[in-house]
């Protein structure tokens, strides 16, 4: 079981993503300061949208859309960082083999 600790950890990460609809919708630190100090309107939206604001498009239930966005992002990041680390250690692992 010890060698599969990362699988358990990944399930924990996905569980964290599943409670994301409970997150506070208040502005974050920077947004609050931007609002209070009058420079919020200077901010521009991205010229394109993929899963904008962590809500998966086309799903009426916002909690479900947020959970889906969270699961996708969590898996993408696990894959991206694992893959990058795997590639960066590839040469040395070959040298050892």
């Amino acid at each position, binding site marked *: 079981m010890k060698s599969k600790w990362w699988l358990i950890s990944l399930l924990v990460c996905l569980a964290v993503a599943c409670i994301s609809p409970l997150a506070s919708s208040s*502005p974050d630190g920077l947004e609050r300061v931007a609002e209070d100090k009058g420079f919020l309107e200077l901010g521009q939206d991205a010229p394109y949208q993929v899963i904008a604001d962590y809500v998966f498009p086309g799903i009426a239930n916002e909690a479900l859309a947020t959970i889906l966005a969270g699961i996708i992002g*969590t898996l993408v990041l696990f894959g991206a960082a694992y893959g990058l680390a795997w590639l960066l250690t590839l040469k040395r692992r070959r040298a050892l083999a």
Partner: protein
Amino acid sequence: MHIPDGLLNVATVATTYVVSAGGVGGAVRIVNKKLGEKQVPLMGILAAFIFAAQMLNFPIAGGTSGHFLGAALAAILLGPWAAVLIMSCVLIAQCLIFQDGGLLALGANIFNMGLVASFSAYYIYRLFTWLMGSTRKGTLAGGFAAAWASVFLASVFCAVELAVSGTSPFGVVVPAMAGVHALIGIIEGLITTAVLSLVLATRADLLQLQRI
């Protein structure tokens, strides 16, 4: 504190892109040389956890929320260069897929939440474990201080970039950002020490690995 586009001027965008590109390039080179096989899955797990935890905004005082940053946790477990790579993965994905943080501001966001947060956290943690020893107490106290400082310092750099860009006067935006993030940093410290004590209880060997 993901900066959207429109708040930074051209000079700040260019400078932060150049510095961050250099930092990420250095991180790739050093991780390529030093990352151990055991650390490969940990890179994936930390990126996944930091992304998921960053979605959970928690309310702090006065109708404001904050969220976990994670750079300190990554820097303590893997070292500052590996943490820069992890934070860059998270910030690039948030920018490209989730439209959180602007494309032009990506360099500044990687600089603040990647480079500044990871390196400040790592050296503060090292200072604490050097003074208090690599005991449970030293690890947790160092983890808390490093996590708080990483959020605080990242917010100060963010505010300075906004001020230099002429978005808001220096004397207004710096104290405002520092004040809010001094509070958010406390939560960062609590989450970081909670995860570190979980690691100490279940996989203490992960804290013995070489930091990169």
